[in-house]
């Protein structure tokens, strides 16, 4: 008896020591992870904030679409941040405020009055005029690390009413009384489950759940359970309930979004309701808390009935326990789930644009900084433009789908602002939600006639040799290249057009006259012009380059046309404006940079010809969809056998490049005009741009010429048209015609008579 007891005492002493050592070790583990940075947070990527000011071109429907995407609640009277009320053309909203790179945008009550597609009034709640205000930017994505955990960190004082109470009521009623484990809670769980005959309540405390998710694996064993209980007690020993609760709210797993794991209530609120957590109402809180038990089982998108039932059960518990009044619960139970709808702006992904952003960021940051530091990336992405481009592409492809072969056609679209060089929208596939081969950036395809403006620009930079009305020959010719091969260009219609004005070669996209002009200028000279336009590819100086044998991606084409659209000032295209740290400190800026590469006079002349392309040339079908008064400039492009259908063009404030073609480089039934231009025109119709209106440069004069002879004439004469010339290169003005001539004679006669 005695020796046995001695042994037992000794053994239990050893056991205690071992347990103590283990506890000390666990304690170190608990403290080490909890006191440091608890989570890594992926970088967040934001769209441009929508600016509001009087005179802004903005359709009310687009504005409301953006507000919906930002999770604004429609209310009769605006109650607080995130609320909006609509009364005809008057919209009142309470913005949420946001920390931007330049400044903090305050949360404020704003009244917006619309008139037509313009903002006609912008006032503060007090009635004072507001010069300019910004909405918060739409979150369009993140840069996730390998384990793909995503979260929006929240502080305990940011949580909405009822969240903590509901969580405690449902998951751990004794939370504020226990020391990490709750014998009472376990007892109650056993009793409830026994009486209900089903597993309705677990015995784990919130602290234990946190420990399990935070420190331990998913293994189910008694020793793990013991370790979990010990760690829970240790955690409670070192930290107060508030800290533990805050960690729980950020850690808990609430859903799976493809590869991305949705952790914490902050992100769950954004993910399911597109609203910040602090704005959630009782019914939404109940839904999220109810999901803790089984995020997949109760996923409200996948299993809405189940989720609704669970939510209402949670609400009943709240009424039962007096957390919320019976009336509040009854009202909350009447509400629908309120989950953002699929296919709306709030529930869309924009993989092609994010791809561009990621490429830029990876040049400037370590992968780890991007996936762990919670950086805030502010981009120029315009979700309204993106949706318009996407629907233009879808609608047009549907309209064209009767033609054989259109089904295999893929697409790439780039939309930029020519005046700032900012990329606003990108489509990388005809299924824009599909993150795969990004054709807008990576499909390098022969640009065909898109190259022609570069040739004409090279000519127009020599006003002593070439004007828009210089005569050139559109005749068949052939030349022998250095490799001995004979190059014999042909026009698309296989006809020669004889002697034409220089601009007609561009407007009608004639290959013969353009190639001949390019050879006169010299292929290396044209390549130099392309280089100045921002084309980075170094092409060999073969004559075939003059007709666009060289390949570019849609993004590179946008870069090239940007310089043409922006008065000869080159701007490197940018998708990112600036970067803030997780704490809101400025980190990096991607400044607006410009460089004048061409005389603005030569650009003015070229734009004139490119406008004629739209009004009378290969792009004229654009005006089947758009009003004639809308001045646009652009160029069609078609590669051999219609393998590539291109269109690049711009208004004053929008530049868009569209490419259609097959991934296997097979022929399509589409030319630049019948394919890409149709998408472009539909997009422009939806985007409702401002007409092109380049100020007349000081060195440009507008002269009247006879349309049939190209000689100088007078506006009174028949056939007189106005053309721009570089000063000094215009034809000498001709004498007046018609009624004016006799009048002058009469005046001379009168003068003579008076003398």
């Amino acid at each position, binding site marked *: 008896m005695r020796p046995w007891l001695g042994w037992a005492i000794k053994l239990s002493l050893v056991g205690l020591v071992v347990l103590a050592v283990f506890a000390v070790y666990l304690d170190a583990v608990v403290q080490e992870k909890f006191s440091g940075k608890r989570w890594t947070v992926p970088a967040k990527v934001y769209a441009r904030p929508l600016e509001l000011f009087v005179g*802004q071109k903005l359709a009310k429907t687009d504005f409301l679409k953006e507000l919906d995407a930002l999770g604004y609640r429609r209310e009769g009277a605006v109650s607080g941040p995130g609320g909006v009320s609509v009364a005809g053309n008057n919209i009142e909203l309470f913005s949420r405020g946001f920390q931007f790179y330049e400044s903090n945008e305050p949360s404020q009550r704003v009244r917006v009055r619309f008139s037509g597609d313009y903002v006609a009034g912008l006032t503060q709640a007090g009635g004072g005029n507001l010069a300019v205000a910004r909405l918060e930017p739409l979150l369009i994505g993140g840069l996730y690390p390998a384990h793909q955990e995503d979260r929006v960190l929240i502080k305990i004082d940011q949580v909405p009413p009822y969240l903590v109470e509901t969580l405690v009521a449902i998951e751990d009623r004794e939370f504020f009384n226990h020391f990490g484990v709750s014998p009472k809670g376990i007892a109650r769980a056993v009793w409830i489950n026994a009486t209900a005959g089903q597993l309705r309540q677990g015995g784990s405390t919130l602290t234990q759940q946190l420990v399990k998710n935070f420190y331990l694996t998913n293994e189910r064993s008694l020793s793990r359970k013991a370790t979990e209980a010990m760690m829970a007690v240790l955690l409670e020993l070192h930290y107060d309930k508030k800290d533990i609760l805050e960690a729980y709210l950020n850690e808990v797993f609430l859903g799976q979004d493809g590869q991305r794991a949705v952790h914490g209530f902050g992100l769950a609120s954004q993910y399911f309701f597109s609203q910040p957590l602090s704005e959630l109402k009782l019914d939404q809180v109940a839904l999220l808390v109810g999901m803790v038990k089984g995020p997949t089982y109760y996923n409200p998108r996948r299993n809405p009935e189940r989720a609704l039932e669970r939510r209402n059960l949670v609400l009943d518990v709240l009424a039962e326990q007096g957390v919320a009044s019976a009336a509040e619960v009854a009202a909350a139970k009447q509400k629908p789930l309120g989950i953002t709808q699929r296919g709306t702006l709030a529930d869309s992904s924009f993989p092609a644009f994010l791809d561009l952003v990621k490429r830029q960021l990876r040049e400037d940051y370590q992968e780890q900084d991007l996936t762990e530091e919670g950086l805030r990336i502010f981009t120029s992405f315009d979700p309204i433009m993106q949706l318009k481009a996407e629907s233009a592409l879808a609608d047009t492809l549907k309209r064209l789908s009767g033609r054989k072969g259109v089904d295999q056609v893929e697409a790439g679209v780039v939309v930029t602002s020519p005046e700032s060089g900012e990329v606003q929208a990108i489509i990388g596939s005809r299924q824009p939600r599909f993150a795969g081969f990004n054709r807008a950036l990576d499909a390098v395809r022969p640009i065909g006639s898109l190259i022609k403006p570069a040739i004409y620009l090279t000519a127009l930079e020599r006003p002593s040799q070439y004007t828009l009305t210089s005569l050139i020959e559109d005749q068949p010719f052939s030349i022998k290249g250095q490799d001995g091969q004979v190059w014999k260009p042909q026009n698309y219609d296989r006809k020669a057009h004889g002697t034409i004005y220089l601009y007609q070669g561009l407007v009608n996209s004639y290959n013969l006259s353009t190639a001949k002009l390019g050879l006169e200028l010299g292929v290396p000279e044209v390549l130099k012009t392309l280089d100045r336009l921002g084309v980075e590819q170094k092409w060999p100086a073969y004559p075939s380059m003059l007709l666009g044998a060289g390949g570019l991606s849609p993004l590179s084409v946008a870069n090239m046309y940007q310089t043409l659209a922006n008065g000869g000032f080159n701007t490197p295209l940018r998708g990112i*404006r600036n970067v803030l740290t997780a704490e809101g400190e400025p980190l990096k800026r991607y400044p607006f940079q*410009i460089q004048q590469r061409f005389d603005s006079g030569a650009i003015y002349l070229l734009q004139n010809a490119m406008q004629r392309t739209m009004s009378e040339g290969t792009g004229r079908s654009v005006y089947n969809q758009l009003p004639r008064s809308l001045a646009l400039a652009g160029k069609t492009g078609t590669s051999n056998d219609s393998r590539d259908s291109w269109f690049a063009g711009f208004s004053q404030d929008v530049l868009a490049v569209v490419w259609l073609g097959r991934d296997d480089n097979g022929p399509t039934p589409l030319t630049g005009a019948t394919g890409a231009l149709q998408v472009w025109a539909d997009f422009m119709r939806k985007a409702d741009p401002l007409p092109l209106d380049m100020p007349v440069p000081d060195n440009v004069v507008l002269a009247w010429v006879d349309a049939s002879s190209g000689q100088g004439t007078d506006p009174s004469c028949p056939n007189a048209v106005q053309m721009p010339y570089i000063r000094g290169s215009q034809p000498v003005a001709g004498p007046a015609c018609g009624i004016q001539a006799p009048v002058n004679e009469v005046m001379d006669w009168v003068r003579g008579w008076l003398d």
Partner: protein
Amino acid sequence: MNKWLIPAVTASLMLAGCSTVPRGSIPVVDGGSSIGSAQSGTPGGYGNQSSQPQALPEDSGVVVMVPGGGGSSMPIQSFPAGNAPLETTISTQPWSATPSAAPQSGYVEPTPSGIPSGGLAMDEQLDGPVLALLTTAQQQQGGGDLNGAASSLERAQRIAPREPQVLYRLAEVRLAQGDASQAEQFARRGLSYASGRPALQASLWNLIAQARERQGDAAGAAQAREQARVSL
């Protein structure tokens, strides 16, 4: 009050109309037949300012580019600059470029030339958003936050991309940031939108002169100063 308002508004509306009608009905500028102005030493061909009959007296009354209102459908709001109530002009434009540039960088004030308003601040008035953002940028620059100032100005530029005063301020901030080359580029872009606004042109040319000096281009700076003088 109303007597000057009617002709001034009429004139500026007429000019505004001229500047926004589609191509094809742009009034002919009779430039005579002087040759080769494009090669007069400055890229962009601003060489022949003196020979151009562009500075109509009414021009100093053209004012605000309504942002987003470049379409001819929008009425262009305008204020006669010379006759504008002075107290509002001064008090609402603390960013006024000329005074702030003068002490910092040896900027030579252009000699007055009979333009009623004189300095850049008087050249024209800006409307709400652009004015607000230029004011913010001025405060940020004053507080030493050049990046913030540049960022606010870029915001203004997105709202009113063709407002030369925004480009002027962007050029100033770039110069203060030590990027003389970009300062010159922005000033040149500003010039392309400053037709018929001689005081603003002179200020832009003076800024180009400063930027060229910083880049060690004394001859180019002298040329730019000469342009500034001719503009007025």
